[in-house]
């Protein structure tokens, strides 16, 4: 690619956009109530929801980011994949069915179930918006860079296009359109990744050892070309077979591991997906499908990353003499061109872009529902808002969030995408996750406890992140990072748990007695679903 427009990519992209707008038009006619808008009327089957969850989760950071990370440093990229996957079984065992049984539209329904509504929902809205905004920045920046490289557009118009399309999906089609866009994109992405991984393995007679051997040789030859002696070069090549410098110290390793595993269980746009299924059984089935697809996808990206080393690792059009990508995050895209020429490149690019659009739509929807359902309808209107009023506030929020996302996308053009995503995970693991776990499983937990503890965790995670290298040094221009580790979670998540526990234990208010008294009934409903209605308006 020369940076000029790639017409086959643009044609595929236009076809996809036209198709998804058709779906949005169709969904818009079915989106009448807030139950449709937030939760697709609660009528999505477990299989479809599983695909949609997989779609939400296989973001651009996963497909483009992880494959490029593997292309660059090999094994370290796999650590991301593993961490992103192992959160799923834990969500299934401890949360999925209980969420479905207790909640209706947002995870705050669950977190605030037996507590004072206003404070807990206000906390949930704040932490939801924080997670959603950081995640949005990452996706917007990724989309902007992708469109810029592929279509030859400038970054500004690229970001605006993403913002406008995403607004159309969510504004008119709500959760029904978002779910279908997510499902279609998941199928396309899984298809593309399968073709690419198959093509790579085919060249090596389906022997991973042969693929790895060649990749090690390529990395060694790059080292040799850059002046390393034979022995050094061989050692350099072998580095892609083991964990390297990505998590240099033990604090970073454990902290990062915690953020990925527990963060998944606190992402509001993922938790929201459990309200689109009719009952706990379907919630459970959807996690099984989602875990299967996501795991399969990560194994494919591993092969794709190594395939990229072998097939494009020394191509001077895409890679510098030192072996680095000329445009970051584009390893899978270049590999697609090497495998299937311009047409396949166009297809994979369109799918990669669709991936970002769909994830951005899901994020925006969960941010909007936090504002309209949790803050407006419950805190401000004390549950007296009707479906139409709530929908209107949702749609206004979507517009505001879209403008905010575009503005932030422009402001953060230079930020590292993978880092922003891991920050969103750290915030989710330090706020939403401890609040949900303790409100579900600990009788002694009180309103005061979850609000102070949740806020403490989120704030510490934020402050430590600002003090760490990617912001304190790279953006603010200070000489040395105050917080030297990769992720804040090892400090902020235990702080949240401890604070919730301590404040709850010391809480002697009349409200605390109500909170504790509500536990057993909450438990019955969480375990059995008795008294839980579907996501319908009645």
């Amino acid at each position, binding site marked *: 690619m020369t940076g000029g427009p790639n017409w086959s990519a643009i044609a595929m992209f236009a076809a996809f956009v036209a198709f998804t707008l058709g779906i949005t038009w169709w969904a818009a006619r079915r989106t009448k109530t807030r139950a449709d808008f937030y939760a697709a009327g609660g009528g999505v089957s477990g299989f479809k929801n599983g695909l949609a969850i997989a779609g939400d989760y296989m973001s651009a950071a996963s497909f483009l980011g992880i494959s490029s990370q593997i292309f660059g440093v090999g*094994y370290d990229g*796999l*650590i991301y*994949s*593993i*961490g992103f*996957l*192992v959160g*799923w*079984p*834990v969500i*299934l*065992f*401890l949360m999925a069915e209980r969420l479905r049984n207790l909640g*209706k539209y947002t995870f705050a*329904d669950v977190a*605030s*179930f*037996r507590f004072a*509504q206003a404070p807990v929902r206000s906390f949930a809205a704040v932490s939801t918006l924080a997670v959603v905004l950081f995640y949005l920045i990452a996706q917007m920046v990724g989309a902007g860079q992708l469109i810029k490289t592929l279509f030859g557009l400038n970054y500004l118009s690229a970001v605006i296009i993403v913002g406008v399309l995403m607004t159309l999906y969510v504004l008119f089609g709500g959760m029904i359109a978002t779910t279908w866009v997510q499902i279609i994109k998941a199928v396309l992405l899984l298809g593309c990744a399968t073709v690419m991984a198959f093509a790579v393995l085919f060249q090596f007679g389906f022997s*991973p*050892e042969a693929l*790895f*051997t060649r990749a*090690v040789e390529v990395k060694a030859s790059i080292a040799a070309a850059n002046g390393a002696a034979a022995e050094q070069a061989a050692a350099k090549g*072998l580095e892609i*077979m*083991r*964990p*390297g410098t990505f*998590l240099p*110290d*033990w604090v970073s*390793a*454990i902290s990062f*591991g915690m953020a990925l*595993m527990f963060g998944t269980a606190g992402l509001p746009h993922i938790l929201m997906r459990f309200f689109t299924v009719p009952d*706990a*059984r379907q919630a*459970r*089935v959807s*996690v*099984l499908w989602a*875990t*299967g697809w996501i*795991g399969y996808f*990560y*194994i494919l990206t*591993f092969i794709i990353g190594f395939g990229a080393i072998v097939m494009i690792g020394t191509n001077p059009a895409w890679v510098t003499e030192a072996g680095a990508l000329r445009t970051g995050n584009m390893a899978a895209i270049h590999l697609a061109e090497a495998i299937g020429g311009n047409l396949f490149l166009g297809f994979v690019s369109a799918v990669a872009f669709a991936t970002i659009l769909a994830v951005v739509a899901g994020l925006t929807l969960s941010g909007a529902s936090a504002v309209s359902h949790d803050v407006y309808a419950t805190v401000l209107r004390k*549950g007296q808002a009707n479906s139409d009023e709530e929908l209107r506030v949702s749609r206004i929020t979507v517009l505001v969030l879209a403008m905010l996302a575009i503005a932030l996308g422009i402001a953060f053009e230079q930020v590292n995408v993978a880092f922003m995503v891991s920050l969103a995970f750290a915030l989710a693991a330090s706020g939403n996750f401890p609040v949900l776990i303790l409100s579900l499983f600990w009788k002694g937990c009180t309103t005061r406890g979850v609000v102070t503890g949740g806020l403490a965790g989120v704030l510490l995670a934020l402050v430590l992140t600002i003090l760490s290298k990617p912001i304190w040094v790279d953006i603010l221009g200070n000489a040395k990072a105050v917080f030297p580790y990769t992720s804040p979670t090892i400090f902020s998540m235990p702080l949240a748990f401890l604070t919730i526990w301590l404040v709850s234990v010391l809480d002697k208010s009349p409200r605390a007695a109500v909170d504790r008294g*509500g536990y*057993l*009934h909450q438990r*019955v*409903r969480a*375990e*059995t*679903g*008795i*008294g839980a209605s579907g996501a319908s308006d009645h």
Partner: protein
Amino acid sequence: MAEEDSSGDAARYDAVLADPRYQRLVRRRGRFTWTLSIVMLVAYFGYIALIAFDKAALAAPIGGGVTSIGIPIGIGLILLGILLTGIYVRRANKEFDPLVDALKKEAGE
């Protein structure tokens, strides 16, 4: 949500709480889910501990080739996650769902 927790529901919930089938469900499912969760946590944080304290252990080549032991371990963790999920869903469908259905029927749903 609180407004739905009418007195009628409260009486139904008290009845379920006293039901031995409910107690059996909660005890068995609780033990099962926490066991599976601990298996996943130990496996994953065991792996993370190797990355934290002994990266070289994952670098050992297997079978005389270049493939390191870290690769099957890593892929194995992904497969373990899927497997545990499958084990839970299977038992939940077979054993826990009928118990829940019986309780729901008793409660008039």
